[in-house]
């Protein structure tokens, strides 16, 4: 079991290392000359060269990569081209904002998705099942900003029950802040609902068909008790771990939603950095999403391993 855990962690670290190379290539190598990109096509070659030297991009790639990665490991994420200030002073507040919005979406979607999936499974093959499955699937395929616009038009503009932007005025009470976050959370809920419901449904259907459920039913337990005590306990194990893997994915969904709702999170930070050609900021932002994503997947794997003895052997399925 320990060996499995160590192997998983090692693989996660290797993935992270490779990811950092990919991000480095995309953000520092492919754009060509950063000095030229910042100063534009009409700047003199001399000014470009001076800026390049200042940014340290005139060194060989290996040296640049090493400087960047060792900096990240020491907690220094580089200096923003745009603001001439440490990237970390922008990144961490933005990450905090993103996590807040993600938490709101999570708190809504997890119970809703499990409820939907279990309900669908209990009405397997019926119209309720079909409605939940089809709507879940359709909602999860529509881009977040598209469903975001629909909910803005309906709830913020026609019904006027919720604010259009996500960022509450400074100094608002937690409850007001929450009110501002509900609308942006809805598209994220849409994206995740179908997936969580599908997992919960599959787990429940499997549990319902098992021998122990048949035994419980035949020994005369009332149906609700069978469901609560025997079906749910077994069906929710895979669901819970799947939900954990969605944490990172949710952060990815925020990427778009934050731009629609003008919310100062990591997603808007990255897009703004890309628009401004602020490569250190862009690089650090994307790397951070990767770290969160890989960490969430790893934790979910380990959690699944603890919950499900069959995977501990690392052999038979």
């Amino acid at each position, binding site marked *: 079991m320990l060996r499995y855990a160590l192997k998983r962690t090692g693989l*996660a670290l290797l993935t992270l290392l490779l990811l950092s190379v990919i991000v480095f290539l995309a953000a520092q190598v492919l*754009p060509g000359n950063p000095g030229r990109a910042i100063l534009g096509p009409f700047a003199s070659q001399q000014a470009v060269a001076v800026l390049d030297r200042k940014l340290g991009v005139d060194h060989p790639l290996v040296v640049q990569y090493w400087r960047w990665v060792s900096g990240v490991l020491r907690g220094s994420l580089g200096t923003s081209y745009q603001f001439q200030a440490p990237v970390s002073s922008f990144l961490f507040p933005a990450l905090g904002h993103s996590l807040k919005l993600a938490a709101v979406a999570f708190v809504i979607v997890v119970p809703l998705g499990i409820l939907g999936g279990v309900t669908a499974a209990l009405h397997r093959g019926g119209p309720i099942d079909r409605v939940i499955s089809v709507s879940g699937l359709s909602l999860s395929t529509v881009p977040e900003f598209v469903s975001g616009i629909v909910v803005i038009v309906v709830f913020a*503009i026609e019904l006027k029950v919720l604010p259009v932007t996500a960022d509450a005025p400074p100094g608002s009470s937690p409850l007001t802040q929450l009110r501002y976050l509900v609308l942006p959370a809805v598209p994220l809920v849409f994206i995740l609902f179908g997936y969580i419901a599908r997992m919960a449904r599959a787990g429940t259907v499997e549990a319902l068909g098992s021998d122990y459920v048949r035994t419980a039913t035949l020994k005369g337990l009332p149906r609700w008790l069978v469901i609560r005590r025997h079906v749910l306990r077994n069906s929710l194990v895979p669901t819970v771990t799947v939900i954990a*893997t969605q944490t990172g994915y949710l952060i990815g969904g925020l990427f778009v939603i934050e731009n629609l709702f003008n919310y100062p999170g990591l997603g808007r930070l990255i897009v703004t950095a890309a628009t401004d050609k602020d490569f250190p900021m862009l690089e650090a932002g994307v790397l951070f*999403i990767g770290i969160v994503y890989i960490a969430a997947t790893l934790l979910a794997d380990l959690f699944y391993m603890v919950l499900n003895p069959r995977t501990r052997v690392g052999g038979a399925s």
Partner: protein
Amino acid sequence: MSVGPAVEEIPEASPLGRGGAAGALDVSAGRIRREHLHQLVRTKTFLAGALILAWWVMCAIFGQTFAPFKATSPNLLSFNSAPSAAHWFGTDALGRDVLSRVVVGARDILKIAPLATLLGTLVGTTIGLAQGYIGGIFDLVVGRVVDAALALPTVIVAFLFVVAVGTSTLTLVLVIGLVFGLIIARTVRAAVLQERELDYLDAARLRGETTVHVMFVEILPNVMGPVLVEFTVRLGYAVFTIATLSFLGFGVQPPTPDWGADIAANYQYLAAGYWWETLFPALAIASLVIAVNLLGDSIEAVLAQ
């Protein structure tokens, strides 16, 4: 469902499958037969999807001839005007007819998405076949790189590379195609692993066939089912990704009519109550992705039988 642990010599990054995007496919290998087609045209979801898709394809090809106005010509006398008899979907901030822009806006996304998906399928199938059949160190190395690239949501990977290489139709096709290729490689690899132990491959090897021949002539026809399903599923995600990139300002560039870009240009006016400028392009995107997914689902369902 790809819950359950994926048990192989080299464990994938996660036994749970990844996000909603990758790994959600069940690999049910199989040849595509003629009766599949007959079954397909009888399913309602397939017909609904095909009908909507056909409409947008028609708009993409002939839209300019039947759109009521020229999609790019501004009319400063009637900007931000609500839907009316003259302008069914209203006009945008520059006075351009929203209906015309929605109709013509189908063009670029319906050009880029299928091309990118096709490229991704070709690249992904080749990589996956090689990974699954050749195996060994090649599989290990490629598998790690694929995992690393997919450790981020595909939208973000695509975004990063489009920002790096610049936005044009060609770069969008290349970037999205290559990123999707990695995802497709995973599915194809898994399907090939199921085939690898079968006798017909031993027979082919004993006949002295080359690796390339075995991969493309012997194995490929037997994994065409998952490849086709991947193609349709990825087509839906390609539309999703391109629309999102355009919305973020790194996809189709204005003034070319495009749904995502039009939303980006007009959503700031939502708060002022000019909802028609963004809602109609948004509904167009939603209808297109849903249509493609309906098609994909019905194909997957028929092949899984």
